[in-house]
């Protein structure tokens, strides 16, 4: 009995710290490998940018390539034009694809593989083929669109809608997968809502993050696209960039970095909005 009490006392007297965890074998090696791969990734992505930056600063005086470009009205006009075309492309894509993806998910699930295949076609058909097809078809009656700037702009937007189809459709479709659209639609209907109200007031707001992701990808594609813009002779940012590459040495490097900055800014916005949405669902815990 005394022995038991002593043992109990000894147990109680033991320092109340966690027992030493046995060292995990290979853990430090794993950590080193992780850092090594991260470093390789950073070097792979950052080195060309750093090189471009250094090259742009070789101009005499040092910042002249940057000031030249920032003061060049054509940089801003082509960028502005590209953004406007990008914006119109995004709006047309949303108007076209959100109801399509919604309807396919809700009422025509059997057609999904076919629709998905169609949306992937831009990966198979190169832009050069697409633009030649457009020019051949729309440079003569009954729809001679290439004859006017407005007509060419319409063709440009149409081509970009097709080009961004895989990204926008998949983004919207992925968003639709995360919400119970059937029940939400039926709830709306039972409350008296028609199809437009359902799409505008319930489905679209709940696809905000997905649509934004698709929209920024579309914007990045439109701002950087060269082939179609060049063959349709539209004053896009990419065609201007190509022009100055042929005539100037350091300025194109500065412009390339400016366009990178804008794209990164857009990605940052997506990340911020995306994180906000994730927090919501975590607090709710229900979905």
């Amino acid at each position: 009995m005394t022995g038991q009490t002593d043992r109990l006392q000894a147990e109680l007297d033991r320092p109340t710290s966690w027992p030493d965890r046995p060292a995990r074998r290979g853990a430090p090696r794993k950590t080193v490998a992780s850092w090594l791969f991260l470093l390789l990734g950073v070097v792979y992505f950052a080195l060309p940018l750093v090189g471009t930056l250094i090259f742009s600063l070789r101009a005499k005086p040092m910042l002249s390539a940057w000031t030249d470009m920032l003061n060049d009205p054509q940089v801003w006009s082509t960028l502005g034009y590209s953004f406007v075309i990008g914006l119109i492309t995004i709006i047309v894509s949303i108007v076209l694809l959100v109801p399509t993806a919604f309807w396919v998910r809700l009422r025509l699930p059997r057609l999904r593989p076919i629709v998905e295949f169609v949306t992937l076609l831009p990966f198979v058909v190169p832009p050069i083929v697409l633009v030649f097809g457009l020019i051949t078809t729309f440079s003569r009656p009954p729809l001679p669109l290439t004859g006017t700037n407005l007509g060419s702009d319409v063709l440009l937007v149409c081509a970009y809608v097709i080009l961004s189809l895989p990204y926008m459709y998949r983004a919207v479709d992925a968003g639709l997968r995360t919400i119970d659209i059937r029940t939400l639609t039926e709830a709306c209907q039972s409350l008296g809502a028609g199809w437009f109200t359902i799409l505008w007031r319930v489905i679209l707001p709940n696809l905000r993050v997905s649509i934004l992701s698709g929209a920024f990808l579309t914007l990045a594609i439109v701002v950087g696209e060269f082939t179609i813009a060049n063959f349709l002779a539209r004053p896009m940012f990419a065609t201007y960039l190509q022009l100055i590459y042929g005539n100037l040495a350091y300025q194109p490097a500065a412009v390339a970095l400016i366009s990178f900055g804008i794209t990164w800014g857009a990605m940052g916005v997506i990340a911020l909005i995306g994180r906000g949405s994730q927090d919501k669902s975590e607090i709710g815990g229900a979905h």
Partner: protein
Amino acid sequence: MSYLTLTGVKKQFPGGFVAVADFNLAMEKGEFVSFLGPSGCGKTTTLRMIAGFDQPTTGRVLIDGTDITDRPPNRRNVGMVFQAYALFPNMTVAANIGFGLKVRGADKASIVRRTTELLELIGLPGKGNRYPWQMSGGQQQRVALARALAFEPQVLLLDEPLSALDAKIRVSLRAEIRAIQRKLGITTVYVTHDQEEALSLSDRIVVMSEGRIEQIGTPFEIYNFPRTPFVARFVGTLNVLSARVIDATTGRLDVGGQEMRATGAVGAAAGSAVSLALRPEILAMGDGEPDHVRLRGTVDEVTFLGAVVRIRVRLPGDAGVASVDTFNNPHLAVPARDSAVTFSFPAEACLVLDGAGRDAVVAAATAI
């Protein structure tokens, strides 16, 4: 004149599967009717046909004398509560509740007034600015109920609204649903596979199986006087004992070597097997009243369930085992295992089913 009427409603899906066949129901205004049945019995399909989400293959749906069969769901004035709440995640609780009114073009002041009123009714005053994801499951379902009631629908439909909630909240919320329904006097159809929910909530229950109505009746009728073996088995727990017909005309039966008599002729030939269906709570240990049916057996097992003690009595031969439920009484001794006991039951409480206990009720029993 009935308020909600379903006449000859049938739903056949492409491929030939008949989900609902010849469904006829007439509900009074303010009545609470539950559709009860196992999964796949057609209860939700019937509800969806009332809501307008599914179109009947044949038959008509009428509300207050108006045929709404061909109307789209948004033109039916029917409120619906879903199992998965289906609250709009992008809207606050108040915006969710006011959605139906906004769609109908109600002015802002009346939407605010009605929303406040409904938040009070569901016990969530001052929670209008919250988002659905900031509320518990029970609170979300209350909001869904308020949203379905906001535009004062003619009929309220509830599709297993409590299935996603835990047991305790389920019990309290079902009482709240019933209280709100009574207060507003709204005609309500409630779909559930939970017999306890249906029995405790409803004015009437429609028991369904394989797309067909098995029985329509009050909870009392459904539980105590099941008209088909399916209803007897599905609602409540049931003892099924094997018996053999001795004399079909006089209704004499052999239950494990013991004789009893049905109330009248048994619709089965002499020598053929039949089944006896008995509720556990209707059986009592001992001889009971003089006119009661008595059967003897040995105690197989005694299970203490708190307020109730369940005694399983094995009958001689292959007659089976009967569970006898008695209220727990610390002053009374429960019989020991393997001891010989007698249990009894009122004659009218026993249903005589056909051999497999599936097809038909062939007679009611009486004591010898």
